[in-house]
């Protein structure tokens, strides 16, 4: 596609990168077909192709973002389904990241919007603050109907019935492998995830120990930066990322690392992009190394190889998180692993479509999110599963809030099948 940037504009690295991306788009429209928001809204402006056009215009003219452009960019889930579909390899993720940063820098949002985003950015990435917020919200939930803002209601609706106590497994430490050490891996314990559900990290640690891994929880690690990054708050996101890079590199330099394991695929997509985030700067090499070491738990387990298990007589509906299937292009690994240890695996129709969770999207765009959740739950339930598994806490919460079928993390099932305890969600049924 033709672009109209001046030579001065192209001297700015971020614009040069966006120009490169825009130039590779041929406007064929394939991306519209697999975009969840276009499926729901049917307006080109709410499709990747339309957003690319809006972004192009905004960046070329260099003008401040306007309310209409912001509305359509805000509606993007960042599910990256378009990147799986795009035949010419348009890197939509980097383009929309740039647009969000431009919006954050040049657009003044309405007060309630700003307040909401500020609170989310200052609470979600910090497990202690988030845990306190969850407990307060439990108290506040009965009053939810009194609050007119759909977004606040969505937040209160998302609060789980049970807020787990802090797991000491998430403290910095090292877990010895059972038997001879095959690998030394760092576990990214996450932020919001460990406040909402401590079983996932516990299961991950047990399973990796069983498979001969020394599992390190590095000191100084925090949120991956995705939550703030998707809100366009670049400086905060980079701050989080830099801290993580330092934490992981300390482990690399002390006793070496074979992998950085991530069990929240939304974080995985971001950590794998650290190399790009810090491409020009002092941290470039370290960031590149961290990105190269980062892998989803399912990727690592395929590499290690799980023992073949006997048929369990349990039907698992596998929900592909967008950050796994599109963001990291990991499609078959989780299903292969589940089958290998003995589960029957089924997949919903339109598996490529997002469930509407998408980080903070369910809180900021409740209407579209609800519609996507309903579609996802309907297609999952149509497969009559005993349990639904996913590799991302956001999807688990979103789908779990719309179905009576138990929802667990894939790693909990794999842990159970190889000798760990039965997942809590299944024992409580």
């Amino acid at each position, binding site marked *: *596609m033709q672009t109209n940037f001046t030579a001065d504009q192209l001297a700015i690295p971020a614009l040069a990168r966006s120009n490169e991306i825009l130039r590779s788009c*041929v406007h064929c*429209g*394939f991306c519209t077909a697999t975009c969840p928001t276009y499926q729901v809204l*049917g307006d080109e*402006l709410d499709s990747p192709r339309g957003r690319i056009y809006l972004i192009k215009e905004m960046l070329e003219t260099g003008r401040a973002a306007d309310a209409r452009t912001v509305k359509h960019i805000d509606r993007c889930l960042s599910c990256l389904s378009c990147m799986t579909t795009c035949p010419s390899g348009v890197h939509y993720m980097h383009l929309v990241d740039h647009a969000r940063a431009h919006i954050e820098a040049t657009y003044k949002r309405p007060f309630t919007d700003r307040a909401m985003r500020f609170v989310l950015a200052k609470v979600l990435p910090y497990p202690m603050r988030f845990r306190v917020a969850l407990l307060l919200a439990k108290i506040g939930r009965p009053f939810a109907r009194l609050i007119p803002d759909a977004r606040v209601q969505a937040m209160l609706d998302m609060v789980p019935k049970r807020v787990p106590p802090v797991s000491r497994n998430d403290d910095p430490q090292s877990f010895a492998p059972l038997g001879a050490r095959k690998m030394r891996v760092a576990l990214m314990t996450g932020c919001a995830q460990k406040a909402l559900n401590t079983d996932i990290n516990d299961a991950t640690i047990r399973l990796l120990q069983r498979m001969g891994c020394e599992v390190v929880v590095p000191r100084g690690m925090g949120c991956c930066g995705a939550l703030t990054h998707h809100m366009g708050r670049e400086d905060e996101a980079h701050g989080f990322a830099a801290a993580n890079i330092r934490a992981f590199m300390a482990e690399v330099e002390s006793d070496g690392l074979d992998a950085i394991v991530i069990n929240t695929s939304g974080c995985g997509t971001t950590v794998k992009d650290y190399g790009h985030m810090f491409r020009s700067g002092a941290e470039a090499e370290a960031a590149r190394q961290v990105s190269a070491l980062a892998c989803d738990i399912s990727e690592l387990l395929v590499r290690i190889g799980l023992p073949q298990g006997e048929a369990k007589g349990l039907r698992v509906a596998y929900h592909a998180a967008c950050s796994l299937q599109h963001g990291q292009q990991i499609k078959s690994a989780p299903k292969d692993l589940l089958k290998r240890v003995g589960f029957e695996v089924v997949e919903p129709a339109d598996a490529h479509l997002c469930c509407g969770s998408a980080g903070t999207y369910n809180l900021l765009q409740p209407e579209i999110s609800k519609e996507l959740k309903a579609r996802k739950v309907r297609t999952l339930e149509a497969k009559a599963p005993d349990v639904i598994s996913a590799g991302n806490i956001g999807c688990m919460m979103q789908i779990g809030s719309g179905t009576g079928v138990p929802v667990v993390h894939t790693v909990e099932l794999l842990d159970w099948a190889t000798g760990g305890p039965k997942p809590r969600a299944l024992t409580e049924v």
Partner: protein
Amino acid sequence: MDMPVPDPVILAKRARIVARLAGVLPADALITDPTETRAYECDALTAYRCLPMAVVLPRTTEEVAAVMRACHEEGVKVIPRGAGTSLAGGSLPTPDAVVLGVARMNAVIETDYPNRFIRVQAGRTNLSVTGAVEAAGFFYAPDPSSQLACAIAGNIGMNSGGAHCLKYGVTTNNLLGVTMVTMAGEVVQVGGPYMDAGGLDLLGVICGSEGQLGVVTEAWLRILPKPEGARPVLMGFGSNEVAGACVSDIIKGGLLPVAIEFMDRPCIEATEAFAKAGYPDCEALLIVEVEGSPAEIDEQLARIKAIAARHNPVAYREAASEDEAKRIWLGRKSAFGAMGQMGDYICLDGTIPVSELSFVLRRIAELSDGYGLRVANVFHAGDGNMHPLIIFNANKPGDLDLAEALGADILKLCVEVGGCLTGEHGVGVEKRDLMDVQFTREDMEAQLRVKDVFDPGWLLNPAKVFPLYVTASRRAA
């Protein structure tokens, strides 16, 4: 590309027109702010762009009719738009026109397996028509490469084909009837859920009329039982000409595969990067697909293999699994988009007699050298429907003009050897000024008179299909 001067009277009463549209549509179905209408300034032919006066996104035939009545009464031009995937600029707006997009009209209205038809709203995507019936063992045959995204409305407008049309025919052979809204806002039904509607074949006139006669809002489509099995085979050759000769021999040999697709080296490389189909390293590749029972497939492939052997293929590989077959087709169907990795392009659509393939491919290579622009070839070889992609640099002044001149020369060559300007993409604006290469003034006059009947005010999809000088007097009146 010359476009008519926008009607100053219409531009002057923009506010009034917008208000009338707002009166007949829900708020979210009308777009008028230039920031937002910009996303509708072009389709998949981005070389030509123009902001429309407004965009409407109706959900029902009634809403379409209301929009048409309002536009008709105000004398406003209407640009029908499906999914905006036209490579010929079929839905390019003008400043004094309203774009009418039917993408939201995507419901399945009725499926009838005993009588083998499906009735859909016309904004439904091509592939999702098959999606709606495949569980019952049926499919909808026409399969344009953009089938994932393109709308049935556009398929009918352009009489689209696709890889598998060699055996199953194009849209017109699979269309039973339509509900259409005329420019005056009248809702008419032409054909219906049965073969061969009575009277003159008006459906044949509507299919392929490029939005010149009305806006199709619903369609009855023929569905077919899925074949027992299908298997694609990859055949690599040392040159385009040899591959072309092999195609000719397969057809001459009395074989009718479901598809014979052709890709040359630049296309093979670009699509392999995306689809990872394992295409062989060769100058020219044929994808030949046959279908039927395993015994039928084996028998046909044995004969095809024997014919191919006479042309010294550098590679010959049958798909060994469903997954491999899928990847082979994913690559082919994504070829246009994947070419975006190499640069900007214009995609041509000339159709030639299959016996002329070798000659035309050689001439295209010579023309390409002469102009100093790369041409990649990917096309439906079995029915001679070529898609030369002219690669250029849209950011380099003058390059588009050069590409267009080369495109015109290639299309003239197609007509010279006994072919035509367009196989399935339609004329749109892209080939509009070449129509007089293929048609005499009298031929075109006859076509204009058909439009006079349906759209006497010449308000529908203006400045497309016919050279402007041919339509000037009608547009002025």
